């Protein structure tokens, strides 16, 4: 199977720009998703029904429908309405990057909220009791004990979520963005070399995945050191 790699080499800038865009999408979506996830998780574990059920409904819907459908609804669906096009949000919603980041952030927010809620619920009782015994107010309890502890314990599962988000960013190519997958599709359409185009994209994603896995191993070593198995 003769693979023509010379053309890929010539078109490397296309892929490199794609990598930059993928990173941009990844970082923005994850950051916004996390900002959304923390209050959402707190709502999920709240004792008041009024907070709990809307949060549950949101995560249920976001996790029960495909990412592609959510993306299409935001990108093509919203643009269908005249009211949206005239609104003050339009300069943002007309940008494909904004729409993609919005869709990804809403989605990862829901998944991360579920993970965080699980960690919050499984906080060791002793930590909460100690905080109360020290006279911490509810707010201080959340701020200094519950959230940091839960965030740390979510780290292993969150690393999976980050890797999944890296793969989800490839959907951005379906709404005209030229990320790594978009670069591969443009290349494949221009030179009729789909094999080379997509194998290159796959290898790039693999390399990025490995990098992220290593990064998370380092993070776990730093923040979850107290949970690591004893080294004699």
């Amino acid at each position, binding site marked *: 199977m003769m693979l023509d790699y010379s053309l890929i080499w010539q078109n490397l800038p296309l892929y490199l720009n794609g990598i930059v865009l993928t990173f941009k999408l990844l970082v923005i979506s994850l950051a916004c998703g996390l900002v959304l996830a923390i209050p959402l998780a707190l709502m999920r574990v709240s004792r008041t029904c009024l907070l709990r059920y809307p949060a549950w409904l949101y995560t249920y819907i976001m996790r029960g429908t495909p990412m592609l459908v959510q993306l299409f609804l935001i990108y*093509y669906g919203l*643009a269908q309405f005249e009211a949206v096009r005239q609104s003050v949000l339009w300069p943002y919603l007309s940008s494909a990057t904004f729409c993609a980041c919005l869709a990804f952030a809403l989605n990862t927010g829901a998944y991360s909220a579920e993970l965080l809620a699980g960690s919050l619920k499984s906080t060791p009782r002793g930590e909460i009791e100690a905080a109360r015994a020290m006279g911490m107010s509810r707010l201080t309890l959340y701020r200094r004990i519950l959230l940091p502890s839960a965030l740390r314990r979510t780290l292993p599962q969150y690393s999976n979520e980050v890797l999944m988000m890296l793969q989800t960013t490839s959907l951005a190519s379906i709404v*005209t963005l030229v990320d790594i997958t978009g670069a591969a599709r*443009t290349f494949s*359409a221009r030179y*009729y070399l789909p094999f080379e185009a997509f194998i290159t994209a796959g290898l790039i994603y693999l390399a990025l995945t490995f990098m992220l896995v290593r990064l998370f191993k380092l993070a776990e070593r730093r923040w979850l050191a107290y949970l690591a198995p004893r080294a004699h």
Partner: protein
Amino acid sequence: MNKTGLLGALALCACSALTHADPGSLRIGIEAAYPPFSYRTPQGEIAGFDYDIGNALCAQMQVKCQWVVQEFDGMIPSLKVRKIDAVLSSMSITDDRLKSVDFSDKYYHTPGKFAMKAGSQLQDPFVDLKGRRVGVQRASTYDRFATEQLESKGVEVVRYASQNEAFLDLVSGRLDATLADIVNTEESFIKTPAGQGFALVGPDINDPHYFGRGAGIAVRKGDTANLARLNAAIAAIRANGTYQQVQSKYFPFDIYGQ
């Protein structure tokens, strides 16, 4: 249950999934998302000028037509891996494509044109479109033209999997213009309620290097057998009036060109 029997049954099922290509049939790739040349009716059936011409040609050649629907940018790769034997989907004959495939004689010839908001002035696309966003269909000749001629002049080219998606974004204002076939734009967009307020503007885009020779049927390089019978069939249906019959169903004007 008998293990070997189970394995044998599984193997048989797997084999039935792989069917042999029938020599008496012709597998033709069509996009079915490019009105009025090829599209789907609400019932889900394929229809359009390309479809009817293809059926007429097959009737003339006395072979069975097997239509394979797929995305436009996958047509030539599918042709090369022998998934299909011909592409009859408004594919323009260009020097670039001739490097990868062979083409039959043309079966119609229409130029490309820009679609923008009605009332827009477009004298010279290379100057007036600078800094604007132009949508094209990925892997089409308009994509090739835009990439090689317009991108260097500072025009931002946005690529879509289908022309319909480009029209959607033109309506919502994400694009300033699209470049596509004049008939496809007219019939599937300008004339529809969604296309109100938009018009075909600017000069006909007819650069021979990209569009000059019309649309033809693509076959694998070196597939002289299919090429010969397709060309003979095209000549035949033009001579015996079938072509004109199909044409009049869709267009009140002559689409064959010179």
